[in-house]
């Protein structure tokens, strides 16, 4: 495991996204950012209109250089939405992509607690603090490279599977098309003429 940098060198940048009104319509991102500046290790905290947009990503990348950041926290949407986006952004600025942590203050905060703005604000602060705390202990990691067997398998020989298999094969990839019935074709082969072209289905 890579060695952790000593705590006094810790330099965390924190970005609180408005996501237009998706987040900012319920809480004030600037207040969360101001609050975050007081947390240990944070050297820079600010709000941004759309963290994922070009302008947001550029801000993060420039800050990494300007403030010599070694950890980045983005309080925005779900990791399922944009974790890869922000990992790529910090990597472009020369930081190991695994030194970025997200707090989900949209799906799991403002969108779920529109009825309780005060509660949502408290939660957004806590989630941001939690991401900062995790960021403090993040380690630089390298992706594991695995070899690739250049063969595809398509399971199901209906019109969707046939289309996939033909296109893979046309790309030069050896493809196995597996069908459980004695013939391929699926439902389409059973149909009379088909809309929208009204031609024969086979």
């Amino acid at each position, binding site marked *: 495991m890579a060695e952790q940098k000593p705590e006094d060198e810790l330099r965390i940048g924190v970005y609180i996204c408005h996501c237009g009104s998706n987040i900012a319509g319920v809480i004030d991102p600037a207040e969360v950012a101001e609050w975050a500046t007081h947390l*240990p290790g944070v050297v820079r905290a600010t709000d941004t209109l759309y963290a994922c947009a070009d302008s947001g990503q550029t801000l993060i990348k420039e800050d990494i250089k300007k403030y010599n950041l070694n950890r980045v926290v983005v309080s925005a949407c779900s990791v399922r939405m944009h974790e890869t986006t922000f990992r790529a952004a910090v990597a472009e600025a020369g930081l190991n992509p695994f030194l970025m942590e997200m707090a*989900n203050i949209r*799906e799991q905060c403002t969108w779920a607690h*529109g009825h309780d703005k005060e*509660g949502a604000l408290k939660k957004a602060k806590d989630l941001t603090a939690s991401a900062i705390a995790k960021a403090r202990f993040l380690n630089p*990691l390298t992706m594991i490279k695995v070899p690739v067997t250049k063969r595809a398998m398509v399971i199901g020989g209906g019109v969707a599977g046939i289309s*996939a298999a033909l296109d*893979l094969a046309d790309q030069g990839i050896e493809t196995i098309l597996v069908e459980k019935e004695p013939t391929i074709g699926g439902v389409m082969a*059973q149909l009379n003429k088909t809309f929208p072209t009204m031609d024969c289905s086979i």
Partner: protein
Amino acid sequence: MVDAARHPKIDVRTFTNVERVEGYVGNFKVQLREKARHVLADRCNGCGECSKVCPIEVPNYFEMNLAPRKAAYVAMSQSVPLRYTIDENACIHCYKCVDACGALEAIDFSQEDKLIWEDIGSIVVATGFNHFDPSVIPEYGYSRYPNVITAMEMERLNNSAGPTTGNLIRPSDQKNPQRLAIINCVGSRDKRFNPWCSNFCCMYAIKNAVLLKQMNPTLEISIYYMDIRTPSKGYEEFYDRARGMGIRFIQGRPSLITEDPQTKNLFIHSEDITLGKISELEYDMVMLNQAAVPQPDVDSVSSVLNITQSPGGWFMEYHPKLRPVDSPTDGIFLAGACQGLKDIPSSVSSGLATASRAGRILHSDEWEIEPIIAQVWEDRCVMADGKICGVCARACPYGAIIIEEGKAASVTVAKCHGCGGCVAECPHNAITQMHFTDAQVFSQMRALLAENPQEKIFAFRCHWCSYGGADLAGTSHFDYSANERGIRVMCSARMDPDFIYEAFRLGAGAVLYSGCHPQDCHYITGQKVGATRADRLQKLFEKLEMTPGRFRIEWISAAEGDKYSRVINEMQKVIDAIPHEQLMTEIERLKPEMEKRARRMYETPGMDKAVTYSDAMVKAINTKEVKNGA
């Protein structure tokens, strides 16, 4: 179809099932079962002599059982490949076919199922859909009234390659009908059966009406509908054309079909919403547009491939907007109706999209996977001291941990998928997981429970399912208590007992332990490891007389946003129902026990720093809040 069979790069394996899938992106191993056809592929030339002499007839599934086939058969004359099959269940072993085949010697009754392993880089799942059986709807009389047929039966009857060579006849008397009714949404958009819209029935209702009207302009056709859904390009115009041809559209869902026992004619009782009247009209024949439903074997396909399902039984995509053809498992993609109902143009589009997504991987020499794997602290593993353990290896769903006497356990990097089960199971805290270390999770917990912990519902969620469920609760705006504070780990297998003790030690009001349903687990049996442990914890807390409901176990899929929201709200009620003093007393009473049980976590490397940092964090949070006066 023929193009696929002819393509030099495509190997078509019909009459074949997928038995097992192992490995990971770029490196899957798939076991196929090639079912015995009793006909040798390289000898059969498709002449069909065997079928001619075969004395056995059984219904042909391909003709929706409207016509028979022999025990030696092809499903249809254009079968691809054109190769006969002997149906083992129907065959009486008269061997007439063997004689008929003669010198070709293509028939081989000794053939058995073959199991074959294939090395594969990427998989496309395109298993399609099935047809709802409308005989379970009593009011429509399907299977009781001969002249009530399904849309699939119509496709065969109105088909020049079908059993009647395209001559539409009434099953009761073989006469051509003069009055035909088509009923939409049969078993679809009906809470009793399937809540969803089946996507293509409106359009094929219109298609069949237009085709039949073109062939026989005097045929009267009425379509009963709730709404006509024609949103794709050119579809509304097609609907317009049908109306122009004199096809009658009646808005209403029929409540009952009755039959005249003499004529076998049918009476449809329905509201006509446009006219505001109840009608009872007579027809010669009725076609039911039965719902499209998931394949009957969808659960077993899910578990073989380790992919999850959305409500209803459609395979779930990684992200409905941004990654609609990716499954949550890297390297496995979803095409066509199995992911959600699609007509042919959309099924083709998604099929082509998967080829592009899989192509990204298959054109690369190497593929990168996330390094969030397990790692052993060799000096902490008791095996290194000659003791017997191996608990970690037993927890691992992938056999990724090597145990040798006298040596510390070691993790095979390429095999580890990063569930974290071994990490949480190790009784000596000798394993850690990259990116989800004890120090990281502990520091997050301290931050989240810094203020008024007794008010908080502390939720552990797995990445693939319950974190997704929480996302969906937000996306759907199913509001829930803002006192929830969540932590994400990859699998419920990683939810260390130490974390749960620590959450209670820190004074959390309630703790949720939540992951995927067992059949949805992204790590084969990771959930089982998590669930067994959760049950153990539950029993312990009962013994310690913790108020019931303060610790809760729930399995929540990424499709169950409503459930996530409901569970959190119920937990809020549990906390609200305990008088404040009583709750604080209970927390204090249990603290020493929790501290004792969580103590090992504090011994793990990095925890000293985590404690120091967290003390500073908690102090900062609390003083800042006072300054703000909030």
